[in-house]
């Protein structure tokens, strides 16, 4: 019973990851500027990377395989998920910051730009 629940929960997470990846790729093509696309890319790496990894970790626990094998895969999948969770937001954050600071891409339809206000105030 518990094996079935674990297996289908893992499959659901894997499926959700696939859907989020499709959404992210649509966003990557449809969004208009760099910052919006960065948002879509982060959906791809968190939604399409971390959810399937956690899904695999849970799915394997419900399978009928030797337990060393099970825990090996669960452990490595969870650690990979943790590393992606830590690094991906920091990476996209500093990309956006660098793009703004170097004036390479201007946040064009913007209501308010606090970073720019801060820079102006400092000068």
């Amino acid at each position, binding site marked *: 019973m518990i094996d079935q629940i674990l297996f289908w929960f893992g499959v659901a997470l894997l499926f959700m990851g696939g859907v989020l990846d499709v959404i992210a790729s649509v966003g990557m093509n449809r969004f208009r500027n760099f910052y919006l696309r960065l948002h879509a890319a982060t959906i791809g790496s968190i939604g399409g990377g971390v959810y399937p990894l956690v899904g695999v970790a849970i799915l394997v626990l419900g399978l009928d395989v030797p337990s060393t094998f099970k825990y090996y895969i669960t452990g490595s999948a969870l650690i990979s998920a943790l*590393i992606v969770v*830590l690094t991906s937001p920091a990476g996209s*954050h*500093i990309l956006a910051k660098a793009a703004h*600071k170097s004036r390479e891409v201007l946040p064009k339809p913007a209501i308010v730009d606090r970073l720019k206000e801060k820079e102006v105030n400092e000068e």
Partner: protein
Amino acid sequence: MKSSTHAAISVTVALIFALTVAIALIKLGFAGPWVTQNINLANMFLTGVPVPHSCCFSASPEVVTSVIWDERGIDTFYETSVLFLAIIGTLYVLAGTFKARPTPEGMTLIVRVISKLVAPIIIVVSLSVALHGHLTPGGGFQGGAIFAVAPVLLLAGWGSSKLLSLGFERDTLLSLRVTGVLLIALTGIGTLIIGLLKGVNAYVFLNQPKPQAPIGYLGWISTPWGNIVLGGTLILLNIFEFLAVAAGFTLAILAVDSSGGGKE
């Protein structure tokens, strides 16, 4: 010439070269969809390395590491020396002493905290890759190259003053490097010295006893719970190579940073 002409010429040369190699491999019978057998050398290593009492037994299940450090160990030692000299050249050209740069401005709290959190994880992964080099794919060079990512992250997030305060000094790194390379050489000629003292035959970079050379390194430790595989010289050489490569890449990164790569 315009740059587009350059690009066209280089692409054409690369394509012609690739085609020549492909045609030569097919003509010699090494490649193609109809080739289903390994070449004899590959079969020799694949069937010989894991089997005790064969000519190329390495006491390790990992064939690639065995071939790199055992069958052609002296070649790998020369590769390590090439890297050693390259880094010495980099230091000679770029930097006298390392400058302690403060934390670069523009780096936010998010990046700093994350780089501080991730750097230890990277170091653990690199140690695991290096210490399991005789069991799984990987090894000293790969582990050392992974290790060098941690100083890069800290350098980007915190500046070189942080690295220097953590003990990544030039002299420490240099001595680690020299120690690594020297210990690799000593491991390589260790059997030779023991063979000379005992009066038996031995080879350079000898791992396990061979038919003509009856001495070798400790291949595994037997415990009541099972054997701990050491792989003879493989684990030692992987550890020393890890030391040399990790310290070398960190030195190169610090040298590039203090030669004016960052902002003053």
